[in-house]
């Protein structure tokens, strides 16, 4: 069979980093091809070049037998390339049909378009109401909008950038049905992910990138997930060491907690209750946008809740702000590293002062003790292996993974009684993620209680003792992680959010 897409020696350099270095691979019509690699391996740059968002410095692309050098996404779409973005390219204040129309070259009149959206979305098991505002849709439904937008253009090649990171396991299953159906109809799919089991079930070919270079091409079904992971990382993986822990008394108790939405399209928290014992790790899973940020904000004290809803070691702290809570031993590390957990333009030392003054002696008579602050920052850098020239460097100069290690380390080293983290390893490479998880486990082993909010179910299964699901602002009753199956978790996460399987 001839190749649909053939790429040779594609190179793209940014100041200071070669994102792609002589990358070459090919995709046949109807093939589901995986592009594997860690964050920063160059996957996104590569597909942006195929989609015409980035121009390569050198190298050639051929699409359907012809030389292919799209000047912009329109040219790529015209040739038959469609892309579903990792961070959705959707407009919240516009409705579904308008969003679809924006991604098309020559959209039909709105009424006809709405009809076609209904047809296509039902045919592929992705029901959508064209008149609804995208801002009111769940993450899974938003992704359907993106996919339907692509399908309406009869693409020959569909690029999917990390499509499952926002889906429940059931939704993933339905997505895979849709993709298999497309593949059977002859559409090639370029599938970017770092979820190896998914790739092993879905893909027939894989190209593995590391530091901008192709390090291997293989059939993922013939490899184990571990082998694939080691090809991605280029080293053997450490397994997290999960020591037996003794559970102590209840340290944090939340009952009947409700909170209004933080943002216009955000969810509200509805009647949350949980109990957390010393030495315990509670994993809270859920698809993004179901109340994770809100939960962290209310536990950290950024958004105090009604009196009597949150108590720490028997004391009602519901009305307290972040600093009094820190003083009592409740610390938090929010998801957004730059701008929420750390101030981008301030140095690491200054960022250490921001959360550290309550529990560390970083001030003297109301003045900042620069020496002590620097010592604390250096201690974090040392203990958490943060790669940086020093504590004087601005937070924004650090890579995502390094800053994440710093942010987590800053809280861990303050010896919290309770630590709440949201997405502790989001966008962090495998080695750094493993060390962050280990740090959280070590902290629990020392007797602290940890709440880990994450969308990465494997991560939660790895570190937590109990698992709860957050779905549309409601928290499920917790269940011990041991013996919990992925199907059960999926049901806890709200199942398939009203999706149906594609009529095959």
């Amino acid at each position, binding site marked *: 069979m001839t190749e649909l897409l053939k790429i040779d020696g594609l190179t793209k350099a940014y100041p200071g980093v070669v994102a792609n270095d002589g990358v070459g691979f090919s995709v046949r019509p109807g093939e589901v091809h995986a592009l594997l690699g860690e964050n920063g391996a160059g996957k996104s740059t590569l597909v942006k070049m195929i989609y015409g968002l980035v121009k390569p410095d050198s190298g050639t692309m051929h699409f359907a037998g012809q030389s292919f050098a799209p000047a912009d*996404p329109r040219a790529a779409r015209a040739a038959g390339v469609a892309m579903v973005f990792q961070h959705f390219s959707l*407009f919240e204040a516009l409705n579904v049909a308008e969003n679809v129309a*924006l991604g098309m070259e020559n959209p039909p009149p709105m009424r006809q378009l709405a009809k076609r959206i209904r047809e296509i979305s039902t045919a592929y098991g992705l029901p959508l109401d064209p008149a609804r505002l995208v801002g009111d849709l769940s993450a899974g439904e938003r992704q359907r909008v993106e996919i339907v937008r692509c399908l309406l253009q009869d693409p020959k090649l569909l690029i999917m950038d990390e499509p499952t990171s926002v889906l429940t396991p059931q939704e993933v299953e339905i997505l895979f049905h849709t993709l298999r159906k497309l593949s059977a109809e002859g559409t090639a799919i370029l599938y970017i992910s770092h979820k190896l089991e998914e790739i092993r079930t879905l893909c027939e070919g894989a190209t593995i990138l590391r530091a901008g270079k192709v390090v291997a091409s293989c059939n993922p079904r013939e490899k184990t997930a571990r082998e694939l992971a080691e090809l991605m990382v280029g080293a053997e993986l450490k397994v997290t060491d999960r020591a037996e822990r003794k559970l102590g008394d209840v340290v944090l108790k939340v009952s009947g907690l409700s909170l209004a939405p933080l943002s216009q399209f955000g969810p509200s928290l509805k009647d949350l209750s949980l109990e957390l014992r010393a030495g315990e790790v509670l994993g809270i899973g859920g698809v993004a946008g179901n109340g994770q940020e809100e939960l962290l904000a209310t536990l950290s004290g950024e958004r105090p809740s009604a009196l009597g809803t949150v108590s720490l070691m028997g004391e009602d702290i519901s009305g307290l702000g972040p600093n009094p809570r820190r003083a009592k031993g409740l610390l938090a590390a929010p998801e957004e590293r730059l701008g929420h957990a750390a101030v981008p333009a301030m140095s690491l030392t200054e960022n250490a002062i921001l959360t550290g003054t309550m529990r560390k002696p970083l001030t003297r008579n109301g003045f900042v003790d620069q020496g002590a602050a620097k010592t604390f920052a250096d201690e974090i850098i040392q203990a958490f292996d943060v790669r940086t020239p020093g504590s004087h460097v601005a937070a924004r100069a650090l890579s995502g993974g390094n800053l994440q290690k710093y942010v987590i380390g800053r809280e861990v080293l303050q010896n919290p009684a309770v630590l709440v983290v949201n997405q502790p390893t989001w966008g962090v490479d495998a080695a750094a993620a493993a060390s962050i998880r280990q740090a959280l486990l070590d902290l629990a082993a020392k007797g602290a209680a940890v709440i880990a909010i994450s969308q990465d179910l494997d991560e939660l299964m790895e570190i937590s003792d109990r698992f709860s699901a957050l779905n549309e602002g409601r928290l499920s009753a917790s269940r011990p992680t041991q013996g919990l199956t992925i199907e059960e978790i999926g049901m806890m996460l709200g199942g398939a959010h009203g999706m149906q399987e594609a009529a095959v």
Partner: protein
Amino acid sequence: MIVGGIDIITLTATLMGASTPVLLAATGELVAEKSGVLNLGVEGMMIMGAVAGFAAAVATGSPVLGFLMGAIAGALLATLFAFLTQKLLSNQVATGLALTLFGLGLSALIGKGYEGVRPPPTAKIDFGPLSDIPVLGRILFSHDWIVYLSLILVAVVWYVLRSTRAGLILRAVGESHDAAHALGYRVVAVRFAALAFGGALAGLGGAYLSLVRVPQWTEGMTAGAGWIALAIVVFASWRPWRVLLGAYLFGGITALQLQLQAAGYAIPVHILSMAPYVITIVVLVILSAIHRHGVQAAPASLGKSFHASS
């Protein structure tokens, strides 16, 4: 029809003219803000339009050329703003404020020689027998062409934003410039066009002030109309018909308070002069507060700088 010393028909008829400068400026600013750019230089663009239009009309004797020149002057100033904020990524708020100060100063300089000059008159459109209809004729068919143009522009802007592809792209750019860029739309080009359109309408509104409303040139004659236009856009929740409502409310109360002064009511003149500003803002604040819950009115990218980094 005279109620309490106020002639209601005359009042309604003057209302439309009095509202036109603010209506034009607010409609233009609505388009600019829908594209995601906050241009606080409306006052500056209006007064530049006022002086340039006045000068051109006096020099050529043609008010039409005057209006055209006013629009061009406003658009030029807006393009300068677009270059600074979209190409050089300067802060939109600071640049807008500077634009107003710049416009006020430059217009005063240019206008020095025109003080006390009378501009060529702008004729009212002759609707023939239509304007003889009692009540309605006076109210609807006794105006100059700019008044009707401003109403048509509101309708056109409403239709284009709601129902055309160009309008959809403009709204998309204002909602999320990153997403629009990812889909291959030229964010900066769209914003340049929207800003230039907004500037042209502000300039036209200014020219209407100096050529028809007053009609003469005085320094600082816009007297805050540009700021009211900005406030109207916000409190009208970025909707064209509400902009029309806000502008006519402002114009109406302006006309009313002048008549109240003339009718000799014992209300302090300062309170009367203040009334249009206060009442317009209060009414629009109430309107936007009882706005349908859950729908965000402001374009999500409003005031944010866009830089195509990836």
